């Protein structure tokens, strides 16, 4: 039960006293800012396009590049977390990632802009550190909820940036800057916020509940026993099943974020502002939907063990596929919005449910597993992105096909199995937490009684 040492067994949302809750709040906020910086340029692309004279195909390449490079970054950052710990990893990502965000304004051609966009894409790896760090801080009974909430609230940054960056841009224009200068100045703002957050992260979090990685003295023999090489963790078929599953949920969320506004504009003849507002609803569900996935994953885990978590994930991914097929067939606007919200709920619950399974796959290579699975999300977005480039396919047809693929992807949960020994260990951990809680409660009652 050493692995549970110091881990929080509940999420006290309004407390910053414990290191676990400080890490919880700083990690979701850091991820929020990373998303803010990652997609900050997206709402300003119209201005950039006019100034740099970008073609439609060049913009397509820029979008794919910004998501594709994250696949490699996520794979590497997971390994880095295992090596140097999440605190320094996050500080590095925030501070180094802020550089291309602030300096993208120096680009003056398609090529230089593409290079900066590629560098910015690396920030997307912050997701893996967020999940790694919350997994280190929270016990199995709440780890799914904690992972889902930090990721969900962080993802919100992608929606908020769409609303806030045009305002920052407008403020610079209001101050007298030309439009060609204002978008460059606007990008400095998220960069500075990221640097400040990086400094706070370094000083106000620790790698583990009981201290930093550098404080823990381990012998060479222990080190050998505790570390699992990348290739060994990557050789596990369950990791790749979850890679595809996460591609089928987070990958689809990224894709819908990109196309929803155009979809409503083109197929329901709405103006851009209204279409954007409806599309925004999809992302706003992140406030609670992803948390629900993690919460029910934890509940299923408490009741039916690790296989309960996996079954729940399979069920909710299957529903996501069905909901996407339904959404693609809607031709009446209010019903299309209702179907989109239902679909959004399923997508984000699936994401939460996926990361309620991930912490139990390989505890010795948590970073590597989280990195590979996280990279699956971006791989899914790239794959779906190519489907939308096919000229002969309409958007509803492409969405319907993706819906079928997602529904079939749910069967991959059959590959995610746990040995009786792992189930037994997970149950023992939960039993240990339960008795621990009882002891704590008994202590509190005894203390109250003695005071009275």
């Amino acid at each position, binding site marked *: 039960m050493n692995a549970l040492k110091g881990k929080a067994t509940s999420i006290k949302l309004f407390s910053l006293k414990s290191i676990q809750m400080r890490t919880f709040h700083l990690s979701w906020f850091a991820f929020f800012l990373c998303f803010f910086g990652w997609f900050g340029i997206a709402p300003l692309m119209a201005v950039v396009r006019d100034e740099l004279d970008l073609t439609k195909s060049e913009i397509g390449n820029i979008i794919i590049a910004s998501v594709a490079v994250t696949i490699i970054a996520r794979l590497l950052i997971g390994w880095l977390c295992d090596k140097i710990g999440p605190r320094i990893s996050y500080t590095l990502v925030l501070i180094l990632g802020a550089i291309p965000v602030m300096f993208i304004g120096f680009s003056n051609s398609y090529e230089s802009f593409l290079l900066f966009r590629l560098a910015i894409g690396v920030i997307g790896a912050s997701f893996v550190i967020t999940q790694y760090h919350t997994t280190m801080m929270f016990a199995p009974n709440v780890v799914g909820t904690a992972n889902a909430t930090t990721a969900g609230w962080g993802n919100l940054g992608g929606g908020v940036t769409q609303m806030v960056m045009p305002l920052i841009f407008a403020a610079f224009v209001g101050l007298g800057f030309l439009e060609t200068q204002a978008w460059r100045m606007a990008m400095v703002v998220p960069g500075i916020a990221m640097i400040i957050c990086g400094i706070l992260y370094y000083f106000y979090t620790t790698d583990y509940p009981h201290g930093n990685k550098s404080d823990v003295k381990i012998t060479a023999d222990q080190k050998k026993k505790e570390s699992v090489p990348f290739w060994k963790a990557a050789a596990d078929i369950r990791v790749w099943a979850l890679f595809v599953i996460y591609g089928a949920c987070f990958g689809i969320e990224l894709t819908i974020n990109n196309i929803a506004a155009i979809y409503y504009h083109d*197929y329901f003849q709405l103006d851009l502002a209204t279409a954007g507002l409806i599309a925004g609803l999809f992302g706003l569900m992140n406030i609670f939907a992803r948390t629900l996935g993690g919460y029910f994953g934890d509940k299923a885990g408490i009741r039916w063990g690790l*296989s309960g978590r996996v079954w729940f994930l399979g069920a909710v991914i299957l*529903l996501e596929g*069905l909901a996407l097929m339904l959404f693609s*067939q809607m031709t*009446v606007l209010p019903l299309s919005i209702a179907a989109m919200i239902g679909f959004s709920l399923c997508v984000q619950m699936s994401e939460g449910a996926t990361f309620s399974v991930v912490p139990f796959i390989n505890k010795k290579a948590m970073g590597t597993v989280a990195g590979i699975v996280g990279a699956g999300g971006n791989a899914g977005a790239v794959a779906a992105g190519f489907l939308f480039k096919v000229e002969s396919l309409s958007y*509803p047809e492409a969405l319907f096909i993706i819906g079928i693929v997602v529904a079939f992807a749910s069967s991959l949960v059959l590959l995610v199995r*746990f040995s009786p020994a792992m*189930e037994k260990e997970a149950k023992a951990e939960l039993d240990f937490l339960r008795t621990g809680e009882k002891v704590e409660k008994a202590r509190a009652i005894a203390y109250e009684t003695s005071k009275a």
Partner: protein
Amino acid sequence: MLPAYTQEHRILPEPLFLEYPVAFFLAVWLANITLAAQSRRGF
């Protein structure tokens, strides 16, 4: 082979209530067909 304490839950656990969301999806789909036919709306 599932571990002993999940033996009784070999099939999908009942409280997932899969039939409710599926019934909701079907209802929305039927409503869309009906309303689209009335207004002759389609892509």
